[in-house]
């Protein structure tokens, strides 16, 4: 079990209804964590999501460690 801090932005923040949460999870990768949260919140269809762990982009197989900060990144639209 690990306690993970998750921050939500933009469309995900509005959908979940908060900007962050601490979650105790048995997920071992960020992909498993996303699947767990998708099951709970039923994320809307938002295209290709990326993920960051501790403020760096990671792939979906990246391992989760206690205390990690995870951010799911919906398609961006700067400029």
């Amino acid at each position: 079990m690990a306690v993970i801090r998750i921050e939500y932005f933009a469309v995900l923040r509005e959908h979940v209804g908060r900007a962050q949460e601490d979650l105790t999870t048995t997920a071992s990768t960020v992909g498993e964590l996303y699947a767990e949260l998708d099951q709970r919140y039923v994320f809307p269809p938002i295209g290709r999501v990326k993920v960051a762990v501790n403020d760096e982009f990671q792939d979906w197989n990246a391992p989760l460690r206690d205390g990690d900060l995870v951010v799911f990144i919906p398609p961006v639209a700067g400029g």
Partner: protein
Amino acid sequence: MSHFVFSREPFTPERYRPLVADPVAGGYASFEGRVRNHNEGRVVVRLEYEGYEALGIKEGDRIIAEAFARFPIAKAHCVHRLGVLDIGDLAVWVGVTAAHRDAAFGACRYIIDEVKVRVPIWKKEHYAEGDSGWINCEARSPDAPAGSAPP
């Protein structure tokens, strides 16, 4: 200091232009992205930018480092607004100086193109009809089916 920064307040290019001044620079190229009053046939009345700032600054700085590697430029800087913006407001500014104009134009173009697709910034448009939408997150396309996020 990072060459890419966010601004929660309105700003002018004049405020940041001194950061790219350089005695070797014979050319200065800049890009100003501003809020337009329409998008895809709809009337836009204002918009909001939200950013994941800790990662955004890192990724923006990486993009500018790439511009330095690709073009013989002297200085480069980029500022992106966050918060609520009205029509005509400055949303993003890129400034580049170089000995010669080709490098300044090329690097400026490279930076804005990459920032738009890589830096974690999200744009919510508010429409004249009263509704709103997160750009690039609402569209459905064949290669981005519902729930397709992770493998």
